[in-house]
C-alpha cells in the first residue's frame, strides 16, 4: 500500500450492528491494533481492502472511538482541548479502548471512571 501524505487514505470501521464509519487512515492508526492490522505484510484481499469489522463493539462506542481518534491527532499537533466522556459509557469505552489498544484513551477513561466512582461512591466493590 503506497500511502502518500497528499492523498488522504480512508479506512472503514464496521460496528457490531453493521454501521460503517469511514475515517482517515492516519486517524485510525491511533489504535495500535488497527495499525498492526493495516501494516501487516501480505495485505488484505481486494474485497476487504481497508475495512475492519468489530463484532464486539457497539455503534455508539465506535462512534466515540472515532471522535477520540481525531481528538488525539489534534492534541498531538498542539491543540490541547478536553475530551469529554459521558459517565455512562466510561466502562464500555474503557474496555473498547483496551481492546483496540489506545493507551491514552484508557487512561482518560480511567480518570473519568475514578471521578464517577467518587461521585457515586459505591462502584468500587463491583469493579475488579
Amino acid at each position, binding site marked *: 500500500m503506497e500511502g502518500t501524505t497528499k492523498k488522504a487514505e480512508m479506512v472503514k470501521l464496521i460496528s457490531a450492528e453493521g454501521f460503517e464509519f469511514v475515517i482517515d487512515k492516519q486517524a485510525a492508526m491511533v489504535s495500535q491494533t488497527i495499525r498492526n*492490522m493495516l501494516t501487516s505484510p*501480505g*495485505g488484505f*484481499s481486494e474485497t*476487504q481492502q481497508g*475495512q475492519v469489522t468489530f463484532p464486539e463493539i457497539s455503534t455508539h462506542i465506535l462512534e466515540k472511538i472515532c471522535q477520540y481518534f481525531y481528538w488525539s491527532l489534534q492534541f498531538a499537533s498542539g491543540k490541547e482541548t478536553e475530551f469529554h466522556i459521558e459517565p455512562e459509557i466510561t466502562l464500555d469505552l474503557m474496555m473498547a479502548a483496551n*481492546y483496540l489498544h489506545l493507551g491514552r484513551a484508557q487512561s482518560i477513561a480511567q480518570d473519568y471512571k475514578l471521578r464517577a466512582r467518587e461521585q457515586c461512591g459505591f462502584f468500587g466493590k463491583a469493579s475488579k
Partner: protein
Amino acid sequence: MEEKTLKDMKEEEIRKMEKKTLKDMKEKEEKEEEMRKLELMLSNIEIKGLSNETLDGIKCMTLYTDIYIVATDSNQVFNAKMYSKYKEFHNDYLNDIVLPHLRLHHGEFLLKEFETSWAHYSKVIHNRLHLYFRYLGRYYVAREKLLNLNDVGNRCFIDLLYEEMRSRVMDAVICLINKERDGAKIDRELVKKVVNVFEELKLYEDIFEERIVAGTKDYYSKKASLWISENSCPEFMLKVEECLEKEENMVRDCMKPATEQKIVSEVEHKLLVLHSTQLFDKEYSGLKKLLEDGKVVDLARMYRLYSRVHDGLQHVCLAFKNHVTAQGMALVRQTEIEVNKHVVKNDVGALQNQQVHLIMEFIKLHEVYLSYVNDYFQSNSMFFKVLKEAFEVFCNKSIAGVSPAELLSIFCDQTLKKKSCDNDKSTEDTIDDVVKLLVYISDKDMFAEFHRKKLARRLLFNKSDSDEHERYLLTKLKQKCGRHFTSKMEGMVTDLTLCQDTTASFTDYLRDNPDMNPGFDLTVTVLTIGFWPSYKTCTFNLPPEMLRCVEAFKQFYQTRTKRTRITWLFSLGTCTIVGKFEPKTMDLIVTTLQASVLLLFNSANRLSYSDIKDQLDLPEEDVTRLLHSLSCAKYKILKKEPDTKTISKTDYFEFNSMFTDRLKRIKVPFPLVDDRKKVIETVVSDRRHAIEAAIVRIMKFRKVLGHHQLMSECAEVLSSTFRPDFKIIKLQIESLISRDYLERDSKDHSVYRYLA
C-alpha cells in the same frame, strides 16, 4: 422450639452443601466448555493457512477477538496454554516447512533458500501470529516476565536451526567466498543478504564472523605454504599485496566493518608473519639481495606490508643497517688499500686525492640511503636511527692513521679553496653535506681544531674562494654544534674583515706622514690572539728594508690603541721580490723568511750556511728548510755547493744569475711543517680541560654522586663534542681529588663528594 431450629439448621446446611457441589460441578463443566472452545478457536489457526498471501480481514479480527476474550476472562487459566500454543505454532512451521526445504538444497541454492525462508518466516508467518496473539503480549507476557512475543519468533528459529546454520549454511558461504578468492565472480548480493539474516538473529559474531575468520585462516595457510615455495620474495610480496586489497574490498562490500580487522589480521598473520624468516632469507631474492641490487620498488612494498604487522619492521630495519654499514666499511677498506699504496710511494698529492675521494663517497652514500629512508621507508624514525648508527660505525674509522675528523677537514679545505665551477653541486650544497657527515663523527672537536688551522692558512694566504662560503659553513656549524664550536673561527673571519679598515687607515697615515713611509707596499694583517691557532714566534733578524716597514706600522698602531701589544709573526707573511736575473727580470713570490734569505745576497754573492744562519739568527731546522726550498726544490734560485739534494752545515750558496723560467711571475713554494701532531696534542689537552670542567660542573650540581654515574654523566655532557676516554676521566677525577675539589666518601669509596 430449640429442636426445630437445630433440625432446620441442619437442613439448611445440607441444602447449602448441595448448592455448593452443584455450583462446583457447573463450574467444572463451564471450564471444560471453555477449554473446548479455546481448542476449537486455536485450531482455527491453521499453519498452512498462515502462508496465504492475502489476509482475511474478518478472520483476522475474529482470531484476535477470540484470543482477547480468553485473555480477559475472569479466570486467567488459559493464558499459559495460549502462550505455549503460540510457540508451538512457530516451531511447527519451522519443522514442517522450513527445515525440509533447507535440507533439499546445497551450496548457493541453499543460501538462497535460507535467505528467502527467513524472510518469509519473519515477515509473514511470525507477524501474523503476533498479530493474533497481540493482546497476550500486552499484559500476560509482561506480568509473567516471559520472553516477549517478538523475540519468541527469533528464538524458535535459532533453537531449531542453529546447527543447520552453523554447519551447512556457513559451509556454503565459505565455499562461495573461496571461489571468489580463487578468482571467480560470485553473487555478492547473496552473501550480503545472508549477513543481514544473521544480523537480525543477532548471531553475526557468534556464527558468521567466527566461521568466516576460521575459513580465512584455513585458506591462507594453504596458500601461504604453496606460494612461499614457488615464488621469489618480490613476487610473493606482490601477491600478498593483491590479496590484502581484495580481502579488504570484499569484506567492506559484504560484511560488517568490525570483521575487516579480524580477517585482515588473519591474512597478514598467515602470509606475512609465519613465513617472514623464510621470505627474508631467500637466497636469490631475499631482503639482503634486494638491498644490494637496489630494488627500491620491492623494498618500498616490503616496508608497506610489514609496517602493518606488529614489530614487523625490526628485521627489515636491521638488514638495512647491516647493508649500509657493510657498504661504508667496504669503502673504508678500499680506501685504506689505495692509501697505503700511496703512502709507500710517498705521493702526497695522490694520498690527498684518495682521502677527499673517500669523503665524497661517504656523502654520496649518505644521500642515497637518506633518500631510501625518505622515499621508500616513509621517513620512519626507526630507520633514521639505524642509518645514523650505521654511519657512526664506519665514519669513525681511521684510514692509515688519519682520523676521519681530519679527513673531513681536508675535504672541507679543498672545497673552500676551489673555485665554484663544480657543475654537479653548488659549494653550498657540498657544505651542507659536510655538516651532515660531521654529525656522525664522534671527535667533533678534532675536526674543529683541524679546520681552524686550515682556515687560518686559507685566510692568511688568500686561498679561500669566497668569504661568503666560509661564513656559510660557520653558520651551519654553529647551528649544528653550538656557538662555542665556531666562536674562534668566526673571530678569525671577522679579523680579516677588520683588516681592510686597518689597511685603509694605515694608507691614510702613511700619506699624512711621508717620512714614515718605508717605500714598499705593506699590508699588515692584525690577528686577535685567542681566535687564531697559536704560532710559534722565533728570534729573527729582519733585513733593514723590512725593519722600516715594521717601525712604520708600529707607530701607526700606537696612534690607534695604546693598550694592545702586537707581536710579529714573520713566518706567515708573503713577499714579492723583484729578481734581476740575467735572462730576464722576474717577480718571485716568496715567504717573508725566504725573502730575507734572498735579500742577504744583495750584499754578498756567496754565503756559507753558517753565515746565513748567523745573520738571520734563526733555528737550524728553519734555515735548512728555507735553503732547501730555494736551492734544491723546483726553482733553483740559489746555487748550492756541493750540488746535492740535502742541505748540510758545510754547504755554500751562491746567487744563481742564470735562473729563469717560462713565466715572469713565479711562486716559490715553501713546504709547511707537518703540524698534525701538534693539532692532535692541542685537542687532547683541550679535552682534558673540558673533562675537568664537566666533572666540576656536575659535582657542583649533584653534590654527591657515585663513580659510575659520574662517568656516564660526564660522557653524556661531552658527547656533542667528543667521545671521552674513560681512563682520562678517571685521571682527572684523581687530579681533582688531589687538588681538593672533590673527596671520596669515607664510608663508600666509590662515591664522591663535592668540596665547596
